[in-house]
């Protein structure tokens, strides 16, 4: 044998590994099996059960098992698709997804560009601080914002609006004092009527949801966009500068194309998360006022747990799951998610 010691060792190793292959297959399944079984029993099985429930006439949790519910076919879906509350819920959910995605993109790109800009000192520390919201439990973040959006006169956001009103009045006062020949009063358009009952109106509630959602999700986007920005070659910027391109031109023609793909990927994931948002509407005012802001999952949850319409709620949840499945498909096709999985 003329091969080196190292080759022989490796060869021996390979032989040992290969000889075990048949038993290894089974061993692999044995190891990975329990995890999959546990996951599926709490995830796939309930989905199947939901689909079954959605074609029965179960009303409350007690009738779900024990033969009290009978099969009624697609009646629940017919009732669902003719229910105006469903279309309202679906509409507001998609509006929420669209508006918050747009806001997240603007906020996250702004933060990322500022915190990678050459004129900013201490960028690294700032980048560490800016993603802090990500580290807190979701219920903590949501309840804080619920407090900020308090409708009380001295609630934090109302207090800030009061400061703003004060600033406008002082500014107008200064103008009034300078322009002594006319009397100027603060224009009503610039002043805000406080206290604002944030969670009492439909669109102010919607605004509160979007603000909270953006605050909770921007760190994820910032992380992705910052790492994409850092990968943009400086030479490209320099070349564009030499050619006389201004800042906006460079942003549009150099930066944007470079971060397009990662931003697309992050957008799909965060849109999917927004679509499944539950805690924000639930903790703020249960999708209120009335039922005007019930996002899809809140709608389904409420019909089941509070209104005892189990079968109907199951039909809602099956519809929601179908949309989530669509997001998964989108993530695979457009975001090329899981491409590196092996």
């Amino acid at each position, binding site marked *: 044998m003329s091969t080196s010691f190292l080759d022989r060792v490796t060869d021996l190793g390979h032989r040992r590994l290969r000889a075990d292959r048949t038993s290894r297959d089974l061993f*692999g399944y044995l190891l990975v099996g329990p995890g999959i079984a546990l996951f599926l029993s709490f995830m796939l099985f309930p989905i199947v059960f939901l689909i079954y429930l959605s074609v029965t006439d179960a009303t409350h949790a007690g009738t779900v098992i024990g033969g009290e519910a009978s099969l009624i076919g697609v009646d629940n879906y017919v009732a669902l698709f003719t229910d105006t509350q469903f279309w309202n819920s679906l509409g507001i959910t998609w509006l929420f997804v669209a508006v918050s995605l747009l806001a997240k993109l603007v906020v996250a790109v702004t933060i990322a560009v500022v915190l990678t800009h050459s004129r900013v000192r201490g960028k690294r520390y700032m980048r560490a601080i800016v993603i802090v919201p990500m580290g807190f439990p979701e219920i903590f973040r949501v309840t804080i914002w619920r407090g900020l959006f308090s409708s*009380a006169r001295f609630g934090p956001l109302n207090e800030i609006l009061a400061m703003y009103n004060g600033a406008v009045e002082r500014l107008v006062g200064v103008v009034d004092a300078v322009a002594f020949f006319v009397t100027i009063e603060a224009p009503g358009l610039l002043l805000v009527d406080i206290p604002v009952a944030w969670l009492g109106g439909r669109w102010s509630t919607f605004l509160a949801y979007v603000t909270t959602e953006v605050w909770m999700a921007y760190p994820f986007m910032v992380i992705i966009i910052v790492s994409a920005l850092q990968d943009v070659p400086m030479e490209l910027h320099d070349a564009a500068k030499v050619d006389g391109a201004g800042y906006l031109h460079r942003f549009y023609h150099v930066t944007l194309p470079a971060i397009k793909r990662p931003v697309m990927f992050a957008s799909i994931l965060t849109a999917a998360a927004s679509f499944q948002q539950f805690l924000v509407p639930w903790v703020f005012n249960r999708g209120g006022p009335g039922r005007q802001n019930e996002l899809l999952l809140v709608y389904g949850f409420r019909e089941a747990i509070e209104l005892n319409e189990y079968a109907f709620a199951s039909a809602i949840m099956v519809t929601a799951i179908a949309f989530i499945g669509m997001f998964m498909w989108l993530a695979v096709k457009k975001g090329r998610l899981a491409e590196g999985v092996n």
Partner: protein
Amino acid sequence: MLETITQTVEQVRTGRRTIGDLGKTGIGTVGAVAMLVVLMFPVYWIVTASFSQGAGLMSSDGLFADPATYNLDAYRWVLFESDFVFDNGEVGEPGALFNSLIVVFVTVSVSLSVIIPGAYALSRRKFAGREKILYGYVLFTQVGAGLSIATLIALYALFVNLGLSNNLLVLGVFYAAGAIPFNTWLLKTFMDNIPVSYEEAAIVDGASQWQVIREVILPLSKPGIAVVLIFTFLAGWNEFIIAQTLLRPENYTLSVELYSLAANEYETPWTEFAAFASLFALPVAIIYFATQSYVESGLSFGGMEG
């Protein structure tokens, strides 16, 4: 710091940097700091509020109480009078903290016991359907977070019928199941980075399959396992809606107690709430940021490479 300043002064004096150039940098930095202040306002508000017991927060002018009046009364209330540690603060009656710890203990032990073997198999073994499993895990992790709420009503119905609804152990297992995909994937990528040559060397030395796992793979995976332990801990500690749906008041975990404090629109005791929230969230946030680099690597899926 001082060195940079003297250096800059020197540069300006010798004319290598203009004052205008310096001014632009100054404006840029100040702008960035201002942006940070606005973004971090909620966190700052909750922390200061927790020190402002009795200062009339939210009932008088001013966003923040006078720092001179800061006190720890709210924390004292949370620890000795609320349900945080003991029921109504009565020593000996286990409160929400105990319930949370029971749930978390079950979640961590159950999930680790299936995640470690699963990650090893996905990293080192070749079997049919391996990639499909990984694919499914990644997909669920990144897109399917709301599925557990969608399926919650079905599980709730089942649990009620089986008499399992108000059970901390069942809740812990539920969380463990939800934590499997992400953490298995995370540990698997960690194990991928352990060189195969170590195992080959052990096999050459006559080690059996089990010995290779026990004496090569497991010791080398310790940091990865530690991170997974933290994440599964957080999964049990942080979750709220499933706990609130399944549990009755005597079994409430910390997250549910926190919500109960904030649930009343006009009479929410904000300072007590703030202290409760801080004690609930700040320790885990610190742990979370200690593992920050892993969080970011957890985000680096195929599609992100551009």
